């Protein structure tokens, strides 16, 4: 007797493709803000081979918030990690500059703990509104595991 539920096989394939899809837009590498500002068409390559473009307006907005040294240190796109908890997300920080930028955009003090700035959904919506192309979601391996 084999498994005869009609759509079972189809769903299995669908689920596999879904797992591949969610993190397909992850950047292969991050570029510094100052480097992107020098490019004619600022972009990074994604893990699926596609290109992720940055809006110059957003890059200029970010550059207006921080000084030249920080522009070199700020790596884009900034990664927002989504974990199992649906109420909050965390912004991955490699230095203090991400903390400074997040604090500036949200207009409130934020703290970086263990390389992550924890933000709640309303703040996430605000951050994404201001930085549409300069932030990117990543589904945490904790969810995938």
């Amino acid at each position, binding site marked *: *007797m*084999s498994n005869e539920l009609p759509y079972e096989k189809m769903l299995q394939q669908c*689920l596999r493709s*879904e797992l591949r899809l*969610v993190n397909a837009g992850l950047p292969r590498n991050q570029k510094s803000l100052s480097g992107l500002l020098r490019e004619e*068409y600022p972009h990074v390559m994604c893990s699926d081979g596609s290109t992720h473009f940055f*809006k*110059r307006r957003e890059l200029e907005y970010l550059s207006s918030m921080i000084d030249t040294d920080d522009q070199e240190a700020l790596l884009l796109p900034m990664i927002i990690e989504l974990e199992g908890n649906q109420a909050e997300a965390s912004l991955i920080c490699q230095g203090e500059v991400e903390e400074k930028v997040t604090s500036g955009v949200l207009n409130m003090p934020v703290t970086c703990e263990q390389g992550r700035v924890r933000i709640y*959904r309303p703040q996430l919506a605000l951050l994404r509104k201001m930085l549409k192309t300069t932030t990117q979601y990543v589904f945490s391996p904790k969810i995938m595991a």
Partner: protein
Amino acid sequence: MPQQLIRVRPTKIELVKLKRRLSLAERVQKILKDRLSILTMEFLQTTIETVEVKTQLVDVLSEAYKALSIATGYHGYIALEKELIATEADLKLTVGLRNIAGVRIPSVELMGHEKSMRGYDLVDTSSWLDHAAQLFEKCLESIIELAELQRGLELLGMEINRTKRITNALEYMVIPALQVTISYLHMKFEERDREEKVRLKRVKILVSRR
């Protein structure tokens, strides 16, 4: 609705396979739910922005047409048309893609629109025309932004529908069917165990009678 049992051989191997499938389905459901919540948040955000940009566009367009009417009245239609022939210019747009949780959304940006010279003669025209041109340039930016937002809205909506269908299929069909089948197999094994015990007891009694 009673859940349909998956027709499998009642063996331990099948039970292990089903348990593995159930854990995969639950994991994917979790990911999909997270993705759905992100997509919904982005959809609502895009909707709000679309309304804002549309309202702004209507306001600026009405102002721009008013300014153009005043400029036309001031210069005369023929004179204005003559001046504006030279202002035609190609738009330079940067069109790219951005990825929101697996949805590729177009990203459009107007390049080099901050021109100091618009192409018409500044001596023969008035500031009314400058004002109208400035407002129409603002309209162009809003139109491009609106196009991007509306396409994003369409794509996000389609993806939300698709993800919702899969989540519902998992939540109401696949996972319950797997759970029911697993519990059926457990019951079947317990029943077998009981049968085996009874059989052994019966054999023991028969042997003791002899």
